[in-house]
């Protein structure tokens, strides 16, 4: 479904991704873990098409469509969704107006008419309830004055409404208390289906107790250095990432001696 091949990317002339490979099949949940600065958020930005992120080499396709050729909005309409680590506040644009514009853009891409305001309000209210946000959050400016947890739940609400094919959750657990974490996890689990895939980017095992991944990958210095099943997350939780440094030191020494 989503295929990332040998992806090299830089921001402000600094290369962050250095040969990232990832194959995601329909219905799979992949967790990506790794230390700070490994390139986890960069991967989400590059795949979703953020300005300022230069692809130097490699390919990203979604169901065979070359994403790197598309504008950010076209990637979203192709079925890609990034839940932001730091959702952007947009005062003056209501949450409802924003989400309706997004859903209508998606519908237009799928050859459908825009949803009526009345029907959309109903859908949005249901989604609001599902992520345990009061419905008056629909009237407020996009993420304006929301707490960290409310912003993360607002991201999940958008995911529920847009029904994407591939969701990248960028540290959707950071800054959440246990209740909010469960709301986020329940939102994700309710959307798991044989034709929808997830990439869960996280620092901690905690979220993966609630969203069971099929695969766990360790991202370090811009590439996947280790992959395994769900038990790898527990291992990482116990050991930390110190072993990565040693491995890199050994690798560097080998390169030098060679």
């Amino acid at each position, binding site marked *: 479904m989503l295929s990332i091949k040998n992806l090299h990317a830089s921001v402000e002339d600094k290369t962050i991704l250095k040969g990232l490979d990832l194959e995601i099949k329909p219905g799979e949940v992949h967790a990506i873990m790794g230390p700070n600065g490994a390139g986890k958020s960069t991967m989400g930005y590059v795949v979703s*098409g*953020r300005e300022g992120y230069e692809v130097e080499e490699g390919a990203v396709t979604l169901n065979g469509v070359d994403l790197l050729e598309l504008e950010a*909005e076209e990637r979203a309409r192709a079925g890609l969704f990034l839940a*932001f680590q730091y959702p952007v506040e*947009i005062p*003056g644009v209501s949450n409802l107006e*924003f989400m309706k*514009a*997004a859903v209508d853009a998606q519908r237009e891409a799928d050859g459908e008419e825009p949803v009526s305001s009345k029907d959309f309000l109903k859908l949005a209210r249901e989604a609001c309830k599902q992520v345990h946000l009061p419905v008056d959050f629909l009237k407020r400016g*996009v993420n304006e004055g929301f707490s960290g947890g409310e912003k993360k739940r607002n991201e999940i609400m958008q995911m529920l409404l847009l029904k994407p094919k591939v969701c990248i959750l960028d540290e959707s657990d950071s800054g959440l208390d246990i209740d909010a974490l469960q709301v986020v996890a329940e939102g994700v689990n309710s959307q798991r289906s044989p034709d929808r895939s997830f990439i869960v980017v996280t620092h901690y095992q905690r979220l993966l107790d609630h969203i069971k991944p099929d695969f766990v990958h360790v991202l370090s210095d811009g590439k996947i250095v280790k992959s395994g099943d769900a038990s790898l997350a527990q291992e990482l939780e116990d050991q930390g990432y110190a072993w990565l440094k040693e491995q890199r030191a050994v690798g560097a020494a080998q390169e030098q001696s060679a």
Partner: protein
Amino acid sequence: MSNWFGQVLDRADSVNDWLSPKRQSSLALLKERQWPTRKTEDWKYTPLHALDTFESGLPAANEAAPSEFIADLAIAGLDSIDLIFVDGVLQSAAVLDELPEGLSIYSLPDLPEGKQSDVLGDFAAIKPERHLFGLINDVLATQGLVIEVAAGATILQPIRIVSAINNSTEAHTRLQVKLGESSSLAVIEQYVGNDACFNTGVAEYDVADNAQLEHYRFALQTSAAMVVGGSHFKLGNRSRLNSTVVGFGSQLSRVDVDVHHAGEYAEAKLNAIYLLDNNELFDLHSTIEHAVPHCITEENVRGIVADKARAVFNGRIHIHRDAQKTLAELNNRNLLMSNEAEVNTKPELEIYADDVRCAHGATVAEIDKSGLYYLQSRGISRAQAQVMLSFGFINELVDQMPNQILAEWLRPQLRERFANMDVK
């Protein structure tokens, strides 16, 4: 000197009523004034040449305006006390007989004799002398309202005062508003009419200790209309002012706002929005005087300027030597939609106290890139995202209006105006 100004001076001598002592002193000041040119600092970017050739037309005779005309001025869903001036003449005074307790409103010409000396004392006492059209209004405004709120009274219905132009080419109206201690009131000033006309509207607000005033000035006239004047406030101890000015711009549209912090711990929140198109001009001059300690001013002015339109903003904050512990912020942000659109903005901060917190800024804003990416990442096209963010930039201040019924009335008008602007 402008033709019209000469006529004003001639006409002023024939205005004779109980306000004459004040009118005469303003007339004396006017006679000393030079007619503004491009070299006059206060009018540098706002040419008055349209007045050189403007034919003075006296206000229409005191006859009722057509009822459809009045009906069109209504705001749906708003439960307000409406006082409508058409061509400078108050249309129906019936509403004055059924006012809520604690509120008194008098038509200026009908002010009871017993009140005249008080109002004479207050007249032109808050509005600074320097405003040219303020002085002209002093001299010519024979129509207007005196509004008083008794101490402790909370008036739930907003008072809406409309100055509309129908047949006439000239109108001058005056508001003298006095809030007693611990009272609260909302006033909406609305200026309407797009045909060539000259309309001055001056309002003076005396806000006593602990009182709260919610204020709106909607200068929504467009095209050939010329509307000038100002809203001037004096704030007592621990009083609060929340004011929103909205301008559409026209041949000549100028609003002067003055806030005088006269009592400690007073708070003023001032928002202003302008949305200009074609050859329109909108000019906002605001002056905040912090004369005493512990007061707060927060002023946010935002505009979108398209085509060949021009915005002028001059925002002065003057913090006097004794005004320690002042908090004052002034911000003017502009979005320019074309290469020929113009903004002349000048924030002025003058500080003579040493223990204050002040900030000011004026920018030509750009669309926020992270906001743009966020919207695009949800499938919204770049063009649509730009429109949403640009309108949101203005709408943020509409959202902050305390009266949401007014906000819902205003928003579609702004949206329509914005939708018709060309991006060049």
